[in-house]
């Protein structure tokens, strides 16, 4: 009897999980489907779900109009660069906070997080002026630095949480065996925290890939990533939903594929230490 209840519950939970998953995924699915419709089909009422004449016309138009590969390359450089740079800075920072905390460590962590509470537009003009002075406007390096700084609090927080799960005694033992600080972090701590670091890298890569405020406001023709590519297909005066959907699908496809292949690591990292 108890077993039957458990099975029923399992079935309900699975059903609920699928429902929630489909709800979350539906906008992406709809965008994907719309990208294969004509503009007239895209606004059809009632909406057309699967039974329409599928066309690749929108992808052809987008390919012809925009240099997709240039936008894609910029996205890869900016998202990848900012994530790696962030990890290089955040690993030692999180190590010190996790294993040699001071009285102020909690305050420092909270202060770092508080920088995320300021609306980005509040610092647009100071950052823009700095970029002009430093010659960083519309450059990949400028955006890499800004996105790294924006995501750094999250990277430090995530790594700090993972590092706290690692027993300090193991690091002490390494030290007693004569390991230097660099060796301790590189050869002892990092291998043990690989799932956490991997999920941090993935999550921050996704955050940087999707960032649309700074990437639109600090770029023009040279460093514009895929967010600018999407923005070039949106219009309040004209119905271009099918083309916009094709552009959006092309912009999110690489990150979706990456997420698909690394979902095990992502889930493992995000739930690391969640159950004790």
């Amino acid at each position: 009897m108890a077993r039957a209840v458990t099975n029923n519950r399992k079935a309900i939970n699975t059903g609920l999980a699928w429902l929630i998953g489909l709800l979350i995924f539906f906008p992406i699915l709809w965008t994907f489907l719309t990208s294969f419709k004509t503009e007239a089909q895209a606004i059809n009422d009632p909406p057309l779900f699967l039974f329409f004449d599928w066309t690749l016309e929108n992808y052809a138009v987008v390919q012809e109009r925009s240099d997709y590969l240039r936008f894609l390359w910029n996205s890869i450089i900016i998202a990848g660069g900012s994530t790696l740079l962030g990890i290089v800075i955040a690993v030692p920072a999180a190590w010190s906070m996790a294993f040699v905390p001071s009285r102020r460590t909690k305050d420092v962590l909270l202060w770092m997080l508080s920088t995320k509470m300021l609306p980005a537009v509040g610092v647009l003009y100071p950052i823009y002026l700095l970029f002009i002075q430093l010659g960083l406007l519309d450059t990949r390096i400028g955006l890499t630095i800004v996105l790294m700084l924006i995501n750094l609090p999250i990277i430090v927080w995530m790594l700090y949480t993972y590092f706290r799960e690692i027993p300090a005694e193991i690091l002490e033992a390494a030290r007693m065996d004569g390991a230097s600080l660099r060796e301790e972090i590189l050869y002892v701590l990092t291998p043990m925290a690989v799932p956490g670091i991997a999920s941090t890298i993935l999550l921050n890569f996704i955050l940087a890939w999707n960032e649309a405020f700074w990437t639109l406001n600090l770029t023009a023709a040279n460093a514009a990533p895929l967010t600018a590519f999407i923005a070039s297909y949106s219009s309040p005066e004209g119905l271009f939903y099918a083309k916009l959907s094709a552009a959006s699908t092309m912009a999110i496809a690489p990150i979706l594929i990456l997420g698909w292949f690394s979902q095990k690591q992502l889930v493992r990292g995000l739930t690391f230490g969640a159950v004790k």
Partner: protein
Amino acid sequence: MEYTARTLLGAAALSLLASTAFAETLTIATVNNGDMIRMQGLTDDFTEKTGHEVEWVTLEENVLRQRVTTDITTKGGAFDIMTIGMYETPIWGKNGWLVPLDGLSADYDVDDLLPAMRAGLSHDGTLFAAPFYGESSMIMYRTDLMEKAGLEMPDAPTWQFIREAAAAMTDRDNDINGICLRGKAGWGEGGAFITVTGNSFGARWFDEDWNAQFDQPEWAEALNFFIDMMKESGPAGYATNGFNENLSLFQQGRCGMWIDATVAASFVTNPSDSTVADKVGFALAPNSEGVDKRSNWLWAWALAIPAGTQKADAAKEFIEWATSKGYIELVAENEGWANVPPGARTSLYENPNYKDIPFAKMTLQSILAADPNNPTVKPVPYVGIQFVAIPEFAGIGTEVSQEFSAAYAGQQSVEEALAKAQALTNDAMEAAGYR
């Protein structure tokens, strides 16, 4: 002979060097719409003629506005040419942020620009942006539904006729709304529409001393009329409908009438997108009976050179090319006369090839009927028809239209919306030092 050949070779090498030395790469910020995208496809013609290359930054209208405003106010120099509208041009020109477009070539024929466009893109008589295309607003209506209702659309109807016709055309059982209008919050969306509606009822934003006028009876009359008519004959949820939502409804045959930008005419008459393409008529935007001012606006997307650019000469060459008579002919040659950028040049409307376009005449009449210096019946201290050309308006206009949209949605009464609009506008104008 050998000497001549050497001389020619030398001259050719020199001219190649010269063209290489002066060839620039221009970065142009623009909006995503059919005309601008068409221009991007024809840029090779400009490069062939001048040697200058062009890089496009195409953005959604609101993103573009924020982006170019940030750049020009900080003298960032990210763009050599910006696509801006009639709202920004006189303000930015006055501030010295734009390069004056004087010294244009005789071939360009600056006097051929429609006077209303030229006036709206100038400050103190100096042209600061060249119109790429211009628009006004007009009525687009279903000729079959009008006939079925037993009515005939006059060329210049009144609001009272429009309300009567909308009620007669409404068929709730078949999901046909007599009229579709913008209600969406935003100074350039529903805010623009209710401002021109207010003009046609004799209302105005400010008196001559910059006092807000929302406490005057004309505004209450305009707002109550609009809401009552939309309740009777408008689509459900019109408070959140903007241009695109209404375009979609009209193209699917769910609107009897739609009053909006003249550029929409080419969309609703395009058989590949519109189910009612062969049943659309056009008329001037309405006025209230006895009010000598119609509810049509005036807008242009124009090309301007920011003062921060180092490539002003090449930028001016591009603007001359893109807004010339020759460009119009180039588009006509490649894409047909229906697709040339409208509303910028007088000569286009004198061209016999363009006269056959069904909406050409009404577009021109609508543009000619708009006067940015006298937008309403009473005198005003500002320039602009669907906006007030002061820097503070973008913020105030959006807040006021949010209050009005809340009234459309039934979240507050007309009296409450107007009282709030009056208070917030006066507060903002006082803070800005106008009062």
